[in-house]
């Protein structure tokens, strides 16, 4: 059983690094992660602060993140976690891994299908993990660049719902722009 999360976070480790247990939305999976990794999520950070001394040993349930997505998110967090887990410095401290190594990891990390990408971006937003949010949003942005409106709609399965007048306006704009 993992050590219960505690809010004092004095940044020191005694016999082992502090860990936190995160539980997926359907209660189907429990993940024990280093505190430094978990605290990359501002949402988790807030939950821990709010739980305070009442935190049970059962871990923190994340109602909006399913097991598969949580596993993937934690893969990111573990890689990007700072070496030390001092709670105030966690954002500012550099990650343990080298810059190039991380870039390579990030590139591979987002080579996923559209469904997973969607889950990741919404999870990153809910969990407030800045680096992951940046990475996923940028990936989606890069996917959109260079496409016509019709191609974007096809890729993302969107319908336009424009009125005929709006469509004319869009057509004129795109004729001029392309």
């Amino acid at each position, binding site marked *: 059983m993992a050590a219960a999360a505690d809010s004092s976070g004095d940044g020191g480790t005694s016999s082992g690094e502090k860990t936190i247990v995160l539980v997926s939305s*359907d209660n189907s999976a429990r993940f024990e992660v280093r505190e430094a990794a978990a605290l990359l999520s501002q949402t988790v950070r807030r939950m821990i602060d709010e739980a305070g001394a009442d935190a049970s040993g059962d871990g923190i349930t994340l109602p909006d993140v*399913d097991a598969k997505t949580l596993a993937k998110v934690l893969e990111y967090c573990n890689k990007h976690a700072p070496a030390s887990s001092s709670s105030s410095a966690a954002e500012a401290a550099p990650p343990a891994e080298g810059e190039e190594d991380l870039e390579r990891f990030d590139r591979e990390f987002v080579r996923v299908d*559209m*469904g997973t990408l969607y889950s990741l971006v919404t999870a990153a937003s809910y969990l407030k993990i800045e680096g992951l949010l940046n990475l996923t949003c940028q990936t989606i942005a890069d996917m959109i660049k260079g496409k016509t409106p019709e191609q974007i709609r096809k890729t993302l399965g969107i319908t*336009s719902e424009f009125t005929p007048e709006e469509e004319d306006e869009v057509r004129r704009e795109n004729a001029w722009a392309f």
Partner: protein
Amino acid sequence: MSFRSLIQDMRDEFGSISRHSLRSRSHRSAGNASRAAAAGPSEAMDQSCWSQLPPELLREVLVRIEASESWWPARKDVVSCAGVCRTWRGIMKEAVRVPEVSGKLTFPISLKQPGPRDGTLKCFIRRNRTTQTYYLYIGLTEAYDVKFLLAARKCRKPTCTDYLISLDKVDMSKGSSTYIGKLRSNFLGTKFTVYDAHPPYDGAVVSKSRSARVVGLNQVSSRVPAGNYPVSHISYELNVLGSRGPRRMNCVMDSIPASAVEEGGKAPTQTEFLLSSLDSFPSIPFFRSKSARIESSTAQSSSQKKDRLVLKNKSPRWHEQLQCWCLNFRGRVTVASVKNFQLVASDDNGPGNQENVKVILQFGKIGKDLFTMDYRYPISAFQAFAICLSSFDTKIACE
């Protein structure tokens, strides 16, 4: 349904991503309220989740695109995103700042909006003598990445000349949706009027063309152009030295108040091309003047003129050694020509202010049929282009 076959289905259906049952629906309401509820399994397979992306997340994606694709041709990605659907359009239009602030041209309407307050937008004009057409591009010169902005075609008439200005290089007819205005010159080529096809601001007056019949407000004569709003009057005169000296230009910008160039001043900014329709006419008063032709500057009262921004060309200095009239074009104009000019706000045109005053429009030759045009706040690309066209046409020459 097994997890594996679900993923397989997702991969197979191109562009159609489902809300899959992996997401626990029982905890949904506890979380993010902005996310739509999941549908039942079979319906979920047909629905796309991307259209359900929360607006704040969509915004994160779109602002990244807007920020990174600043210059043409990449900027077309911004226009593309604004054409995907209503939600995307709303977010993108809100993310794009006007050229006055950002210094970037994005949508066609940018061409009707004032240029940047900081710096100038550097454009160039290519003339095609055979087809009597002029093309405006943004970019340093053709050697760099350029973007076509506007085209103008010269149409000679018995008593005047019209330059029809369009968003399209080929289609320049007045009836087309790409027509955005024109420059009309008088017979002598000494006086010009710039007409905007769309109202430059609320309550703008429309001019009656001579060929129009008098009509009630609820009818539109088929001979009246869809929109004909005079936005500036340009005149050319010889200076005191006659044809031996540079000519004098005077531009009254009817749609821009003189206060626009003062501290805290604003210039009107169109936010969209208002569609010409019968509905829009009743709210717009028809201009009544003693003369049906707006070209005549005596038709305007002098008090009206005082409120409007007036641009005049900066007086060149006579260079004794070079024996020519010189203006400092800062490298953007390289061939001497009577067409070259720099326009400044008339209040700034006193003898003392010469070097520091902001040049609002600069135009000049750099090669055969090639000219640069640099403009800034408070005039728009459309107005700048029209004023430059007048310089091509004027018959007042200079030795």
